[in-house]
């Protein structure tokens, strides 16, 4: 009998059905009903702590912009900041979760930066006022960032009870205020909708050419 169970399991495995295969289908909208891109959806399983799933992430600097705008990592992940531009950049952060700076450099820094505190980190470039990006350092490996349509699918979630929160750079208030709890079974997809109260976009306008202002 064990052998049959084992074969059954193998078959199941072979068919690709996993034990921790629940999904969370999350849509994020704002109070006006518009879809919200760049929203970090993350789910914390109650009573569990996970090991580091992914060891490294990359935040590139391309065409004088950080790419991507929002990065979500599990706490403890290292992030590499390659400079793909032909000019130097000076990356810095004053966020309490991670204060660091990479003074003017080009190419790939020798050492990646380890984000060892949970929190939300704002990245800037000292010599280019408009360059901004965010890193959400999360306590859980289950997270996804919404795309342009405000939709994120968090996959491979073991069954259990989860507290789901959403964070977005323009969020008014804290993620806890909008938290939702959900019970996930071993498989299947649960759908969630988050409606967020957002501040107007504060991003500094990128300097187009050299001709704005003028002597007034």
């Amino acid at each position, binding site marked *: 009998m064990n052998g049959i169970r084992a074969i059954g399991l193998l078959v199941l495995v072979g068919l690709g059905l996993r034990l921790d295969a629940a999904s969370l289908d999350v849509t994020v909208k704002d109070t006006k009903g518009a879809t919200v891109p760049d929203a970090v959806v993350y789910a914390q399983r109650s009573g569990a702590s996970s090991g580091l799933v992914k060891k490294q992430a990359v935040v590139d600097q391309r065409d004088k912009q950080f790419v991507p705008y929002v990065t979500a990592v599990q706490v403890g992940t290292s992030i590499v900041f390659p400079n793909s531009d032909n000019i130097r950049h000076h990356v810095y952060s004053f966020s309490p979760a991670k204060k660091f700076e990479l003074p003017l450099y080009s190419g790939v820094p020798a050492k990646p930066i380890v984000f060892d505190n949970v929190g939300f980190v704002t990245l800037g470039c000292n010599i280019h*006022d408009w360059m901004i990006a965010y890193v959400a350092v999360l306590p859980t490996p289950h997270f996804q960032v919404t795309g342009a349509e405000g939709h994120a699918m968090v996959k491979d979630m073991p069954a259990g009870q989860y507290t789901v929160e959403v964070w977005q750079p323009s969020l008014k208030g804290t993620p806890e205020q909008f938290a939702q709890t959900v019970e996930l079974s071993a498989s299947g997809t649960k759908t969630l909708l988050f409606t967020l109260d957002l501040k107007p976009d504060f991003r500094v306008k990128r300097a187009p050419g050299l001709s704005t202002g003028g002597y007034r």
Partner: protein
Amino acid sequence: MLFFLIALLTLLQCVTYLVIRNANRQHALTQIDSSLRTGAQIFQELIEQRSQQISSEAAVLSRDHAFQETFAGANQDRETTLSALASLQSRVKADVVWIGSLDRQLLFDTHRPEIHNVPFPFPKLIERAENTESSHAFVIFDGELFAMAVAPMLAPDPIAWLCPGFRIDDDFAREIKAYTNAEITFADGSNIFGSTLEKQRLAAKKLGETQLPPKQIVDLRVGGEDFLSYAVPLPAENGKPIALLQRSLNEELAPYIRLERNFLILALLGLAISVAIGAWMARGVSKPVLQLAEGARKIATGDYRHRVRLKQQDELGSLADSFNQMSTGLAERDRVRDLLGKVVSPEVAAELLKKEVALGGEEREVTVLFSDLRNFTSMSEKLKPQEMLGILNRYFTGMSGIIEKHGGVVDKYMGDALMALFGAPLANADDADRAMQSALEMTEALDDLNRRWQKRGLPTIGVGIGINTDIVVAGNMGSATRLNYTVIGDGVNLASRLEGLTKQPEYDARIIISGCTLSKAKRKYRTRRLGEVAVKGKKTPTEIFALLGQN
């Protein structure tokens, strides 16, 4: 007349002065009005620019990475941050810099280093900045007025608010005055933050009590001087600060007052000159004119001898000369008239002068009287020619006096004969009577004369008078340049013949009249019919009578 003129001139000057004065004041007020409004516009523009400027400066300052590091980086310490803040402050020449936290607490104040985590005094300032990225306003803090800008410290998200403040004081006021050309005072009620006008600063309390309607020009009396004032309200977080632009009315009027003073001097000078000219005119014009008037009055009364003596050579002098000539001419005319009257008798003279002297005559009924002296030649042999003329003249004077008394006219004297007319040139109803009465009186007068001459041993003379009434031609006879008013006709000849008939002893009459004359008489006379005479041109002879006397 002179006084009237001077009074008029004075009035004119006064009116002109007042008009000018009024116009000046109006103009000055208009000038100040437009100047203040323009000044206010410039001021508003300046303030706006300055505010934009400090906002931009705040934005640039807030991007200072090095400073951001002292504030938000690892290893923060207040001392370092404050010192860096002081450095930022002097970079833009601000007077104070605050840092406010995102939850509206005051974290740093360069004036009071010990301040930390007290509520931000002007939360609305931050609120506005949150919505519009930057803001600026005037704030009153610790009794001073600041222009404060608020900029987010972007790192690259807003992490705090950087607020540099610029004090509004006397220096700033002086700067503004250079642009607006008006005195400027920054005040809130009686609290004066900065001013270019010392007088206004001293009158701070009164300013606080004065109502200053915004954007209107009012006249404020400051330190004894009138200032036209225009209040511009400043957008402030607390209090009601204003910028008061002022211009002195006196200063504006100064050039006009100079003008007015000059005008007054000129006016008075003009007046003095006018009085002098008037006085001179009185001597040079009025007096001579009065003298001429006096002269005319004298002439009117008939005194043609009066002469107007003027010293001057001008128009009045020549007028006086003409006047005197006129006087002479009038005297001359009078004499000529007189003479004419004497020569032809006043009535004939009047008749002649009445109309254009022309030859010719008119037919009228005239009573002609001829008289002639008897024995005169024998008397004249015994006398000297002068004595004889004297007696003759005395006789003629008496006779012509009688004739004229009775309204007759002596036509001519012919030696010792006399011809008189009754009825020409002027007629009376009773000409015949007048002639007869004259004749009677003449004989009586002669009797009188004879008695007197007899007493003196002089010989006596007799007279014969002939009177006839008939239609004759009376008028000017002779040539154009030498004529004689007389009568001609058969009636005249008859009168002469009748006079001649008095020589006839058989008639024994001194006066012989014709029947015609007697028939025309209106009164009764004593007469003696003498007979008839044949008259040329008449078929029937005419009766003649001797006139003896009146009844």
